[in-house]
């Protein structure tokens, strides 16, 4: 059985939805953070798949961009989580509602 573009896209969609659900439903800031990474990598997967399918390197180039941005984001994000923990002694986002109107 040949693995077509649709397989890759389906897997990517599943991964992305898992990531979205993680962000929306989990309460631990670190888990939410990991879920975001999952969403980014789901997108990476589609990019690679299209690049393969259309024999175009543009997609691959973009993947490198995404990965470098994700690395930077990971550094900043973790720093924020640590700062948050120092102030609130919790990483449960339910308890962090400074924006409440």
């Amino acid at each position, binding site marked *: 059985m040949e693995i077509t573009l649709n397989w890759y896209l389906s897997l990517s969609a599943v991964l992305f939805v898992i990531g*979205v659900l993680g*962000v*929306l*439903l989990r309460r631990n800031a670190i888990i*939410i953070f990991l879920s975001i990474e999952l969403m980014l990598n789901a997108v990476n997967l589609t990019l690679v798949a299209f690049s393969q399918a259309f024999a175009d390197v543009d997609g691959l180039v973009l993947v490198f961009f995404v990965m470098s941005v994700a690395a930077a984001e990971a550094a900043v994000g973790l720093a924020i989580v640590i700062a948050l923990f120092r102030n609130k002694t919790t990483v449960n*986002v*339910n308890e*962090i*509602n*400074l*924006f*409440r*109107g």
Partner: protein
Amino acid sequence: MEATSVRLILLLPLLGAAINGMMGLFAPAYRKQETIIGAIGTLAVAVPFVLTVLLFLGHDHGAHIVSTYTWMAAGDLSISFDYRVDALSLIMTLIVTGIGALIHLYSMGYMHGDGGYWRFFAYLNLFIFAMLNLVLAENLLVLFLGWEGVGLCSYLLIGYWYTDLKNSAAANKAFIVNRIGDFAFLLAMFLLYQAMTTAGVAPFGLDFTTIFENADVLASGTVALIVLLLFIGATGKSAQIPLFVWLPDAMAGPTPVSALIHAATMVTSGLYLLARLSPVVLEAPGVMMLIAFVGAITAIMAATIAITQNDIKKVLAYSTVSQLGYMFVAAGVGAFFVAIFHVLTHAFFKACLFLGSGSVIHAMHHVEHDLEHKGVLPSSDLPYDGHFDAQDMRTMGGLKNHMPITRWTFLISTLAIAGIPFLAGFFSKDEILFKAFELGYNGATWAFVVWGIGIVTAILTAIYMMRCYMLTFEGRERWPGAMDTKPHESPWTMTVPLVVLAIGAALTGYIGLPPLIAEVLGTESWIHHYLGAEYGGPVAEFKAEHHVPHLTEGILLGVGALIAVVGVWLAWANYRKSGLETDNTIRRRLGAVYTLFANKYFVDEAYDATVVKPITEGSRKGLAPFDQNVVDGTVNGLAKSVSGLSGWWRGMQTGIVQNYALALVLGVVVVVALMIFV
């Protein structure tokens, strides 16, 4: 040269007001520098007076327009700050600056030691500036600017001692009553502009030159309405029925203010307006008849009230209303130049009388102070309730021995206003009565009625003015402890203006000799030649077709002189013999009528019942609930509903980031769904 002079004349008083006002406001140490403040204030009016005299001497009898700049321009309407130098405006400017300068000098002495010295001089200079704008203006709007300006300054100066609620109330009354008149003035301007532009006069900037050139395009009904509205405006400023009630109350201000604003200058601006527009006013004979009657009735009404007053300034205030009534009679019978002539003579003798009364009040204040010091006051044997009143003539008397200069100048002015022959008032008042008679002789029977009222008023004037003099300066000294507490003559800054004004009160009449006397002397009435339109001046007049015979004219002159002498003699003889008792005799003789006079015909009470009460009560019962329930209810209800709605909206802002993210995702889902299915 002329343009520069006019600008300086206008701007120097404004500069004086600015210096004294600003320095006094921002540099408290300056407030104590009375000499500097007074000198600046006085020079700011004296220098313009000198300039005006030079302008007057070099004047070629024509009308010169001095343009400065355009104030506003919109379509066909273009209003400029233009000023008009002609015979009429020069006479008025001479009165305003000349008498103004004297009264400034007088104020230096009178206001000595007052905490608001700087404020007083700033207001006074500002008044002169506004008044000069009024008399020099070339168009109605600039005139109106001055008109409102003098009203404002009058308000500020009546309420000068504003810590006393009574004075503030008087100031408010003056301002509000004046505003009623000003409203009519505004309507007159609107109507004039509308009528003129509809008739195709464009561009039209409400300027007198255009008005005079195009007066004939207006329908006679429109002219009558415009003149009527202008006259209503004049009744406000010049204190005529029905708007005269503010002037007696305006005496709450310092006495120099009463002399300058409420006797010599501001209150004559209504007359000035009518004289300035005399070619137009003459086109409305019906309204002129009304003007003459209003003037005559005001004159006799105020004169009868004046007989019953005990406050020296109130007597003079009602006397002013009465004399203004005479001036309106002159305007009403078409003798505008005579009205201006009486404005001039009246400015001298009434300013002198007011300043004289100020000098008396000044002296009586010192007496009051001495008496308090000696422990005589507060005293229970005053002829009235309450505190010692430095303005009440019942506690004066015998001042002639202590204040000779004040006494003689006051006497000369009293005789002048009474119309004793060959003093100023005799010439101007007689000319007014003669003009009324002349109009009657030319077929207008109603003018005889006006003339008759004028004659009766003349004799009343002689009586009440002589009464005022007798009670103040002659007879027994009636204040408590009079044996060893004596008043003193005022300082030179106060007596010099008195002397100058008294000389004017004696001599200014000779510029307007009656035709008969002028003919006998082989000369002519100077003021008639200077102002009259038939000699190229700015003031039009009613032209009599039939001249009154010389014999009748002579008899009228004799009658005028006789009634003045009889009136003065009556008051002199009675008050010399029985002093204050004479008032009681008059009261007994007149009975209920006297009560009517003494209560000022209950005009204030009538206005209170018909206008003030309904408005205040209506506001309290109708408008206040409306304001509290409907207006406030709407505003508060709006605020409540907004706050309720936002409370409900606020629930969405949970502060939990995941909720926001959910909204975001749902949004994406919606957008994608739209892209796919629509």
